[in-house]
């Protein structure tokens, strides 16, 4: 079986080009594809074939990484629709949203000094989780329309801020658990 490297990730994984993804089908197809291009099968193959199999494996891994992640998948879908993200120059200026971000970061900074750091951190993590879930729904609705909706770009940006927060909160959680 040959794999067309020019196919978009959705097609590569036999999925419709939509934000909503059937995770079980994605996982199943990933394992299938991995078997096809597994290095063991090309151990005695000519260099050229081995190289191609390796490129395919890389493409499959990258596709899987993108499709299983809501944020990466949303961005990818918008890129397929012709949007070019300019991360270096792109700023977000919604004051109310950014104020919430600052408050949450302040809350996070206060966790260590609170009476029950684990409870305080748990509350923050729950809040971040709920916001990410709501943004997932928002992004799904925005991407259900054709084209590049402004609401989709806003939801992507907000998701990025909350991802960063979640990452910081998880790092703090690991530190607390280590007792450091």
């Amino acid at each position, binding site marked *: 079986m040959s794999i067309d490297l020019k196919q978009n990730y959705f097609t590569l994984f036999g999925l419709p080009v939509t934000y909503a993804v059937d995770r079980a089908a994605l996982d199943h197809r990933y394992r299938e594809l991995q078997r096809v291009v597994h290095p063991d099968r090309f151990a005695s193959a000519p260099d050229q074939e081995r190289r191609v199999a390796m490129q395919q494996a890389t493409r499959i891994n990258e596709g899987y990484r993108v499709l299983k992640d809501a944020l990466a998948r949303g961005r990818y879908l918008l890129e397929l629709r012709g949007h070019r993200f300019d991360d270096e120059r*792109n700023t977000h200026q919604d*004051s109310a949203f950014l104020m919430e971000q*600052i408050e949450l970061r302040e809350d996070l900074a206060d966790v260590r000094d609170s009476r029950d750091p684990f409870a305080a951190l748990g509350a923050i993590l729950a809040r971040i989780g709920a916001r990410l879930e709501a943004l997932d729904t928002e992004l799904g609705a925005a991407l259900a329309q054709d084209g590049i909706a402004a609401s989709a770009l806003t939801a992507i940006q907000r998701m990025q801020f909350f991802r960063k927060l979640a990452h910081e909160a998880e790092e703090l959680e690991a530190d607390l658990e280590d007792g450091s």
Partner: protein
Amino acid sequence: MAYSEKVLDHYENPRNVGSMDKNDASVGTGMVGAPACGDVMKLQIKVNAQGVIEDAKFKTYGCGSAIASSSLLTEWVKGKTLDEARQIKNSQIAEELALPPVKIHCSVLAEDAIKAAISDYQAKQGTDSASKSA
């Protein structure tokens, strides 16, 4: 990544960290964030009757370059008129701090923050001239 000495200096001894009353009519508040890295910057200016920035404060959650960019900017805008402050370009900040290309967005954030603070102040004064600025 290695930070330049100037970045480290501002990062370790940030100038003008703090907050002002955002409801004060003489205070302009600019909030901006960089989605790519999740950095958030709040920059506030206090403007006197002559239109000169008397004081500036910032609060930045982000990397060393973002903190240094906002710290440097608060130093630069003090004593400047609003029009002068609006002329500050991110490239000047990036150059002064010797920011590497991957950190240019931190200086973009600072430039956007001062512009947003000026617009906020002018909107409060009812003399919003943001639209005629280049």
